[in-house]
């Protein structure tokens, strides 16, 4: 456990070194722009617009950070050959991978939480009430990041950074269309196609589980059962991805 924590700490340092705070600056400026320019034009719906764009921006940017940083995380270790020094120590490859996963997730989670906190503070400063319901959206987004990070780590365990970014983006995109895939696959398609689409449906991450922004912006709190379900789903799906990534990484030839 301490070995995983050490790798995670190091990964977190590496994430910070990539000047991720610039994303926060970009987000803050964008949100301030929305608040100053667009909110007054929204005919009384300014708070909703700020909250909507804040939550959407925080989720999209943190996902982007995970994809961009995560896709090269393992590759860099191999490229610089630092992985040999790590592997010479009494640490299993799977522990190294879990540490990378944890460090990346913690970095992205901190970024996401800061962006959502910025949104809430901006709403408070602009005279609105503190939107307590964003807590539920934050927890769901953190769980979603567990899956996104898992997808990145899985693909990066066996392929190049560019392909990792591409496959991750494609998986997340397909995850949003999972329901449609199932619908089209089971309506009028051949048995084989129906079986294939059903297989893909269960294989893809169901990211809609984590999307409660539509509730939160209208002041509806996310229910406890939904939060528990999302946490369990993220733990199981993220765990499956990590297990698969570890299995592949254990067999990978570093030469």
């Amino acid at each position: 456990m301490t070995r995983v924590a050490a790798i995670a700490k190091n990964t977190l340092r590496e994430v910070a070194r990539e000047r991720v705070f610039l994303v926060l600056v970009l987000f803050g400026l964008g949100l301030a722009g929305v608040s100053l320019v667009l909110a007054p034009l929204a005919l009384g719906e300014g708070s909703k617009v700020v909250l909507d764009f804040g939550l959407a921006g925080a989720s999209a940017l943190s996902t982007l950070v995970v994809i961009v940083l995560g896709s090269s995380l393992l590759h860099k270790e191999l490229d610089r050959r630092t992985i040999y020094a790590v592997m010479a120590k009494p640490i299993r490859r799977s522990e190294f991978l879990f540490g990378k996963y944890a460090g990346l997730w913690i970095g992205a989670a901190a970024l996401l939480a800061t962006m959502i906190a910025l949104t809430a503070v901006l709403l408070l400063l602009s005279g609105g009430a503190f939107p307590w319901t964003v807590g539920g959206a934050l927890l769901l987004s953190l769980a979603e990041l567990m899956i996104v990070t898992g997808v990145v780590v899985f693909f990066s365990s066996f392929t190049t950074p560019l392909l990792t970014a591409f496959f991750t983006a494609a998986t997340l995109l397909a995850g949003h269309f999972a329901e449609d895939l199932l619908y089209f696959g089971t309506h009028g398609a051949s048995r084989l196609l129906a079986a294939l689409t059903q297989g893909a449906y269960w294989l893809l991450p169901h990211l809609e589980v984590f999307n409660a922004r539509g509730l939160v912006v209208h002041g509806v709190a996310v229910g406890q059962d939904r939060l528990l379900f999302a946490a369990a789903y993220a733990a199981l799906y993220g765990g499956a991805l990590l297990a698969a990534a570890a299995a592949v990484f254990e067999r990978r030839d570093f030469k």
Partner: protein
Amino acid sequence: MTAGLPTPLRAAFPFAAAAALLAGSALLYAASWSRIGPAPGEELLYFPSGVFVRQASLGFETAAADAAWLRAIQYYGEHRLTDQKFQRIDHVMAVVTDLDPAFESAYVFGAFVLAQELRRPEEGLALLTKGRHANPESWRLAFETGFLHYVCRHDYAAASSCFVQASRLPGHPDYVERFAAFASQRSGNRDLAVLLWKRVLATGNRYMQEVAKRELARLEAPEAL
């Protein structure tokens, strides 16, 4: 090309070139887009359907709804100041409400514009009905439906029924009950119409307030008495 220039100027040259090219693109846009771009009234012709945008928004439906809402207001505001033609407002409001079915202001404002400004009350009511199906617990949508029935369609029985329904829904303010009682007693009464418009003046957005002022002036004119 910059070989003869002093070093500071040579270093600044790429930035100056980038700034000049950017300014050129802005000038070209400002000079020509109004001639080449969509003609007035056509700007929302190719606005995609809500179902499509919902799919394309990848889980960010409510943010997409806000973007469409801002576009709708811009469209309405521009045409209100110029040719009074905002025929596509129904489409853009349908997109907004497809993306965010709980966006009550979009139903209310869209129905208001359709019924009061474009004289298409049935379409306004259809938008509110869509909203009430998606938000059966909303007193506001029930109340606004009553408002349209009363003011635009002069269907006082339907209006009274809607006000009563609104008064039974959770979270309604006190005035809803007063309207419910008043409407059942005084169907077709001018005073009630004045009160309803005064309510729009107090609670509506700035465009709705302008219309309310106009209607109040009309209702309170000596010939209306």
